[in-house]
């Protein structure tokens, strides 16, 4: 894997911030976009833009074909059985909200939904609100101090009242790669369907929905080098077919009269209104790009970055890293004794380094560790060992200033 070559595809990385070369370590928040993705969006608007699925004219057919090809590409990428199982959304958050809305009639008073203690707010609040509305109960699978979950405990929690298990594939704070295939197997043994939040998983793990066996898988394009504003809800056909529609309007209908409306078939049933066609094409281009570099090459490189950065950070006095799972993605959340994460983030920014500070939209997890927030550095395919050296030196320098 030729990092220098890859970096040429990401011109945004080649800039100065506060007079220093940018070191972009905020990839868990969003990744940068390679030229082929930017070019694909540009080409669409230069040559193909038209509304999809309704026109008789040439451009409309071109756009529709491109949009549906993107859907098929995503289906193949995550090995869905059928491209009808791929719903385009705005992102993970909308995917989860869509599901929480359409599952609502299925959740009765006294039912239970299980989530884990490491969920991002977007895979927590929609379920909490649904439970509140339907007088159901939200149960939380606890996280161990090392940032992992206990599968034996999960088994015990999956009582007959449980109607859904919603859990993250990879923690955006701890980097923990959950054993999702095993989790799904345990849940299915108890007859409980599973939603996996793949916001981080899509970029840092091989996602084969049939192999994993998940009933639903949600992710955002922008975490895997695709544009913002496009995401996916994968749902097994047998599920999506019987669930009610989400939003109502154009495209999602079959026949409309003032007395009655019948709804379109999958996947259009869930895509009311004009979709983000450019986003879908950008997503396809990003997935193609990732495949071309090679998933294994990327994961291998990211793991080297993770190991090296962990080792370098651990040498800093007072360092406390959160998340020690054996299977861990390229995310390091940390605190340094006596140093406020916001102060450290500010000083790193002065040195051209972009990290995330704060609670990372996982306040209950912060409460569990008894902290206000952390500093989080997260890596992507274009990051280098040299950048980690720069980062570790910068952290040392900042800590000296702050202590």
């Amino acid at each position, binding site marked *: 894997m030729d990092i220098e070559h890859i970096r040429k595809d990401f011109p945004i990385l080649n800039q100065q911030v506060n007079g220093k070369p940018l070191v972009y370590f905020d990839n868990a928040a969003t990744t940068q976009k390679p030229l082929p993705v930017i070019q694909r969006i540009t080409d669409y608007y230069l040559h193909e833009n038209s509304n999809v699925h309704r026109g008789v004219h040439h451009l409309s057919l071109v756009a529709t074909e491109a949009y549906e090809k993107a859907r098929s590409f995503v289906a193949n990428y995550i090995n869905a059985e059928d491209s009808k199982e791929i719903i385009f959304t705005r992102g993970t958050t909308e995917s989860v909200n869509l599901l929480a809305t359409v599952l609502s009639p299925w959740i009765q008073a006294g039912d239970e939904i299980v989530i884990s203690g490491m969920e991002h707010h977007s895979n927590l609040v929609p379920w909490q609100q649904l439970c509140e509305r339907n007088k159901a109960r939200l149960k939380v699978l606890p996280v161990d101090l090392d940032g992992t979950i206990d599968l034996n405990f999960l088994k015990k929690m999956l009582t007959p009242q449980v109607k859904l298990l919603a859990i993250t594939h990879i923690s955006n704070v701890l980097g923990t790669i959950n054993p999702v295939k095993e989790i799904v197997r345990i849940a299915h043994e108890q007859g409980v369907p599973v939603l996996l939040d793949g916001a981080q998983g899509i970029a840092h793990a091989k996602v084969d929905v049939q192999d994993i066996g998940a009933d639903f898988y949600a992710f955002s394009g922008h975490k895997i080098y695709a544009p913002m504003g496009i995401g996916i809800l994968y749902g097994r056909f047998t599920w999506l077919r019987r669930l009610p529609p989400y939003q109502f309007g154009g495209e999602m209908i079959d026949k409309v009269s003032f007395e009655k409306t019948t709804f379109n078939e999958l996947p259009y049933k869930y895509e009311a209104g004009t979709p983000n066609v450019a986003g879908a094409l950008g997503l396809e281009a990003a997935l193609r790009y990732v495949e071309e570099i090679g998933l294994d090459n990327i994961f291998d490189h990211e793991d080297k970055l993770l190991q090296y950065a962990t080792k370098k950070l651990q040498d800093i006095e007072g360092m406390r890293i959160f998340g020690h799972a054996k299977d861990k993605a390229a995310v390091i959340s940390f605190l340094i004794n006596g140093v*406020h994460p916001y*102060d450290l983030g*500010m*000083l790193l920014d002065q040195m051209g380094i972009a990290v995330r*500070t704060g609670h990372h939209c996982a306040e209950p997890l912060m409460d569990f560790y008894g902290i206000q927030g952390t500093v989080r550095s997260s890596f992507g395919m274009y990051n280098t060992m040299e950048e980690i050296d720069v980062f570790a030196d910068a952290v040392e320098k900042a800590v000296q200033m702050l202590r």
Partner: protein
Amino acid sequence: MNIAKKEQEVIEDFSLFEDWMDKYSYLIELGKELPLIDEKYKTNQYLISGCQSRVWLYAELKDGKMILTADSDAVITKGIISLLVSVLSNHTPAEILEAKLNFLEQIGLKEHLSPTRANGLSSMVRQIMLYARAFQIKLKQE
């Protein structure tokens, strides 16, 4: 000394610094100095939620002048608070309401006051101005 003069003094202090490190080291020193607020006011009642760094602000009126005390759990935020308090505190509400606070821009710290910074500083300034307006009304009624 009026507010504008105090602002000018801060600008002169900062003009001595050659690079960002000196500037931030100075802010950190300011931030580390004595507590700026009575512990009894470091409660949720006086907390300005800034999402990332927390800011506590207390204002009272003494002899027609506003006395401001504040604190933060992040030391750089606290340093900037200390600048704001030193410039604004001990002035009448009318003077505070007229303050331009241009000095933050001139010393290259304006970005910290941006509402997108999530450090509570912009909310703190807004809160100071709300206090000033309330105290001004109170003074007029007396």
